[in-house]
């Protein structure tokens, strides 16, 4: 790769990782809001229309985006461990490092729950699945927000190219 520097290459990967995460965050938040606060009357304002989306249609997209974002993150993680984490430790950013580790744990839990999440959403009319479907979606959404914000803060502390 002589047409691009190593730093630029990894920065591009990080940006793709971030863009995938934003798409995932949008889809999952939309779905979680719709399932946690369902609209029973015809949509009126922006907030009501936001809540009124057909949630089931998001399930496959959420699974695909979660896996793609995970793969990109796992790829970048090798360089993070060597070029980002060591300087952060030398600077004494222990809490930042700890929260990044927590982010890896939480995103892994989400990965493990994707098959059952997809299954529950592929059976949207099965009433006994309603509660698990709703709360699993909300938990995945909270994990996604936590992971996204932690990654964002870490990139502010020391991103690729710094």
């Amino acid at each position, binding site marked *: 790769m002589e047409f691009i520097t190593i730093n630029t290459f990894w920065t591009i990967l990080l940006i793709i990782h971030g863009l995938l995460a934003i798409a995932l965050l949008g889809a999952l938040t939309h779905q979680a809001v719709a399932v946690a606060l369902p609209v029973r009357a015809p949509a009126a304002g922006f907030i009501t229309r936001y809540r009124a989306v057909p949630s089931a249609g998001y399930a496959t997209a959420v699974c695909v985006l979660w896996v793609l974002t995970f793969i990109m993150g796992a790829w970048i*993680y090798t360089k993070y461990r*060597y070029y980002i984490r060591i300087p952060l430790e030398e600077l004494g950013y222990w809490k930042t490092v*700890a929260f990044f580790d927590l982010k890896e744990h*939480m995103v892994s839990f989400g*990965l493990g*729950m994707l*098959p059952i*999440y997809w299954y529950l959403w592929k059976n949207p009319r099965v009433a006994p*699945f309603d509660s698990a479907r709703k709360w699993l979606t909300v938990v995945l959404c909270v994990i996604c927000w936590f992971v996204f914000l932690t990654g964002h803060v870490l990139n502010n502390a020391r991103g690729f190219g710094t």
Partner: protein
Amino acid sequence: MTATTTTTPAAAETKAPLSAFGKFALVFGITFVVMYVLCVFKGWPLFSYHPATNRFAWGYELARRGEGPVMYWYGWIVLCAIVGSITGTLATFLPDRIAQRIPLALTWILPIVALPLMLYTLMGLLTR
């Protein structure tokens, strides 16, 4: 007096049969999270990865002098996926009446329960 196995309408409404994939997915998810927590606490990676030298080693291996840090996370993920797939596949053979006894709520409760456990493992960094 004969014992009956009939269920009340209310009980019947709270359970629904899972397809073979449903059983797999439910048990896979539960096993994945439980196994992940065990891996972190016990230090059970399937393999260790040395990013500076791009070297893999089976099982748990400490960082080597002059070779930079060692990573276990990939080894945990792969091990959890393998164990989860095995238990999930076995779960597809479970009769419906047994599979229905596995609470679906575990799918969202387990990650919440695991959160403080993970925080506990990071206390060394958080309180430094």
